[in-house]
């Protein structure tokens, strides 16, 4: 191995993370409140016309295909989207503490989503009619985009991003989005309030194929775009001017990165509410392991984010059985202290 070259280790990590994701996905499929065996359903799939279990098999099929599988697929999509948008945002802001949840982008996306939930039957009805199931993710995307653009304008001056300004501006933007959201919640009727509360805590519980159809294409598009940003984001680590010297079209890179972050965050927030800290924990762990090279960091983040969210979902389903804890509580309970730990570790490096 060449000294200082961590690409070999990164490729190994990628392979290991693929296996980890396969294992967690299989485990999530096979394990749940109801006693349904994914293995038997799969076996039935490959041996049709054989043993016919009748009603029992039908029930198992429904549990696997309509409850567990959408939940696993959604978990993978959301986990990957959150982790990748965190990593892209950190590269864009040249700052390991940037995360859509922390700097108000999720709050902005949430405002968009809440607007559709509350006003979808009245003033925003034309939008909902026009976009159908995409209205919610689209509104969340717009909210996230507006917040990211504002944040970038405020926190970046002459190609350098101030960490302190970014975090503080994020707090302000989050508070503003929260205030507007509060007004909407104030207007909401009882049924909407119930929807809002469960949505806001963050959960994969309501996973359906419809939700996947609404958010999935956007998330997949972002995940496919992300690798093309890697080289540019690497160069951005040296500053905007140097990235430009290295041949990166910086303005275009920033535009694409901002739209990608807003789209992935918007889509995730729209279908699963406020699941925090995945975007900061996952890339940070991976940087310790394989280094900050985005060519490996971005794909590995997608895999680890997906796995971690499935694990968090498993915890949220089992910790208070037979009830279910919203997954946002689990990720915040683990991610909050983790964020503090990063802050403490880097206190000397980051001059706040």
């Amino acid at each position: 191995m060449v000294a200082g070259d961590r690409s070999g280790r990164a490729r190994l990590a990628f392979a290991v993370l693929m296996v980890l994701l396969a294992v967690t996905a299989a485990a999530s499929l096979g394990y749940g409140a109801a006693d349904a065996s994914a293995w038997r359903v799969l076996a039935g799939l490959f041996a049709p016309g054989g043993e016919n279990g009748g009603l029992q098999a039908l029930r198992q099929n429904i549990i696997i295909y309509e409850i567990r599988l959408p939940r696993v697929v959604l978990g993978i999509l959301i986990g990957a989207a959150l982790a990748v948008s965190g990593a892209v945002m950190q590269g864009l802001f040249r700052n390991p503490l940037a995360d859509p949840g922390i700097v108000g982008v999720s709050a902005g996306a949430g405002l968009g989503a809440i607007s559709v939930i509350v006003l979808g039957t009245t003033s925003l009805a034309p939008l909902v009619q026009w976009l159908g199931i995409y209205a919610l993710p689209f509104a969340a995307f717009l909210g996230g985009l507006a917040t990211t653009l504002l944040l970038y304008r405020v926190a970046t001056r002459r190609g350098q991003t101030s960490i302190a300004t970014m975090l503080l501006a994020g707090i302000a933007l989050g508070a503003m989005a929260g205030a507007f959201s509060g007004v909407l919640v104030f207007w909401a009727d009882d049924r909407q309030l119930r929807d809002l509360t469960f949505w806001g805590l963050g959960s994969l519980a309501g996973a359906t194929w419809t939700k996947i159809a609404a958010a999935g294409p956007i998330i997949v598009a972002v995940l496919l775009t992300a690798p093309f940003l890697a080289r540019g984001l690497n160069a951005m680590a040296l500053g905007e001017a140097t990235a430009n010297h290295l041949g990166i079209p910086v303005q275009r890179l920033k535009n694409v990165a901002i739209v990608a972050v807003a789209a992935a965050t918007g889509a995730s927030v729209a279908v699963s509410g406020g699941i925090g800290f995945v975007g900061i924990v996952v890339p940070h762990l991976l940087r310790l392991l394989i280094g900050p090279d985005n060519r490996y960091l971005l794909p590995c983040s997608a895999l680890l984010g997906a796995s971690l969210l499935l694990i968090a979902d498993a915890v949220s389903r089992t910790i208070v059985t037979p009830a279910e804890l919203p997954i946002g509580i689990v990720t915040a309970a683990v991610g909050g202290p983790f964020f503090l730990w990063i802050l403490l570790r880097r206190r000397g490096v980051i001059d706040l």
Partner: protein
Amino acid sequence: MIEANDVSVFIGKQCIVTGVDFKAPPGALAAVVGPNGSGKTTFLRSLTGELPYSGHIAINGAEVSALKPWRLAAMRAVLPQATNLSFPFTVREVVGLGLSSGRSGALAGEGARLPERALARVDLDGFAGRFYQELSGGEQQRVQLARVLCQVWAPVLEGVPRYLFLDEPVSSLDIKHQLIIMRIARDFAARGGGVIAILHDLNLTAMFADVVFVMHRGRLAAAGTPTEVLRDDIIARVFECDMKVGILPRGDMPFVLPQSAA
């Protein structure tokens, strides 16, 4: 050839560079000297395509402001005064970023080991596995030079000369490494590339430069060979201090000795 005609640069409403004419041919080392705040860095940043300018700047005959970043990156590399890195990259990874434009011009066999070879040239053998952020300022500066060298490893690619822009490349280096870095720049020019360097040390300028451009308050105060430009009167006027320029008998090289301020 890097050619600037009547170039002015504004930052905000302030005119930092006014009507500068400049010519740096391939095969030569052009030094830009002048007191702090005389507009050297701003001028260099307009030459590299980083700042908008009025007038004309051509690199190998093409207007700089009209070239896409990747086209520029294939023709020139830039060493900024200081670079702070936002993530814990290793030294080798930082140097490897120089290859990202994909036009290093290295021969087929040497491509993969280019970061190591570049590090060896700047006297950082064995530093590849260290973390950039843990190095001293002078070491970091040399790592950045190694990165820049990777970008334009071949001074001439497909018959087109390429250029190194160096903003105070030796400012935080000890004397040994100042000489190593200046020899790398000389060597780059000797093999057909062009070097444009902002320098503060007038004696290094006299030793290594083919042409010297003296900037003063955003304007070009003098231009010519070191012997033509490094004169008592010019130095005293531009740097506003009393200087005595002597001539070393070996090779007629001028040297500058500051006199007492009083």
